[in-house]
């Protein structure tokens, strides 16, 4: 399991360090897609996270659905570009068995997340995570980080950093 987690985590590590070694880097989607193409998927880890109303979300709540699980934070500019896309995806694909789960990693919790979501008006669950959550997903080295999970509950793609709306859309459509 650890080796499989590392295989999906390594591309993210490369993104951060490759950026440090040269001009600004891009997303890790290519490498992750290669891993996915090679059949290197990993099961969605067990998780239990709450939304701002205290409602608990677990792995079983998304079983049988294609999931875009996104780690973000209010201080992350690139994360805010993606949010309106996710609202579109949720509206467009919800009835075909798709859902977005957005997990905030803000240290200050709902105090800072609540005002942001009040403005955004998301049509998908916003959950609160922490370092432990991030580690359960193999470590989050930078934000945004998103996982695409298929209907069998396997993580098939990991994106670290901003990627295009079109790329997300193409991956989601393939799995629906």
């Amino acid at each position: 399991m650890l080796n499989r987690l590392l295989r999906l985590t390594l591309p993210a590590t490369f993104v951060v360090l490759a950026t440090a070694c040269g001009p600004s880097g891009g997303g890790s989607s290519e490498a992750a897609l290669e891993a996915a193409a090679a059949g290197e998927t990993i099961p969605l880890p067990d998780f239990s996270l709450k939304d701002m109303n205290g409602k608990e979300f677990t792995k079983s709540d998304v079983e049988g659905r294609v999931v875009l699980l996104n780690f973000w934070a209010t201080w992350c500019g690139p994360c805010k570009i993606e949010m309106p896309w996710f609202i579109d995806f949720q509206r467009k694909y919800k009835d075909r068995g798709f859902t977005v789960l957005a997990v905030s990693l803000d240290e200050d919790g709902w105090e800072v997340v609540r005002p942001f979501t009040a403005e955004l008006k998301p049509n998908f669950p916003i959950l609160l995570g922490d370092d432990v959550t991030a580690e359960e997903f193999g470590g989050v080295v930078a934000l945004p980080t998103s996982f695409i999970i298929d209907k069998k509950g396997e993580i098939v793609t990991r994106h670290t950093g901003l990627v295009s709306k079109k790329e997300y859309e193409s991956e989601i459509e393939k799995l629906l």
Partner: protein
Amino acid sequence: MKARSRNCCDFTGLAEKLTAWGCGLSLIAASGLGQFIGFSAAFIEPGPSVTLTPGATVDVPISVRIRKGYHINSNRPLEDYLIPTKLSWNAAPLVVASIDYPQAEEIRPSFSAKSLSVYSSRIVIRTRFQAPAAENDLSELKGKFRFQACNDKSCLPPKTIDVSVPVRR
């Protein structure tokens, strides 16, 4: 998402290693080291020690190197949601008279519709301390440097690193 702190010397060591070993080796070294792998987009450069004269002021420059491709928010970001760069001190019995941050640059990265006030490359933050009239046995000035870095695709978690300036007797 909590920042992982390291002390000034550890960070300097990491930076030197990254430079000396080359990025290829650092990729391998970093890949198995946990969630944030100790990577920092900014680090404190080693500076000279300071000499304190009772009753006098002393200026202490802190030099911060920011990795290529990254920026950190200035001490006065233009948006409320951004985390400002902040240098703070715990240097009693010295009193902090002023902390002067450098002029920020305004950029508009691809992910932002608005300009951002940021620092990049290398900055120097100058602190003026007032020493007490009485002799003291302070051996170092201790501080914290907090920042949050992004490149044009992603952001790293806010980080606080220790600052230490030796006092020459």
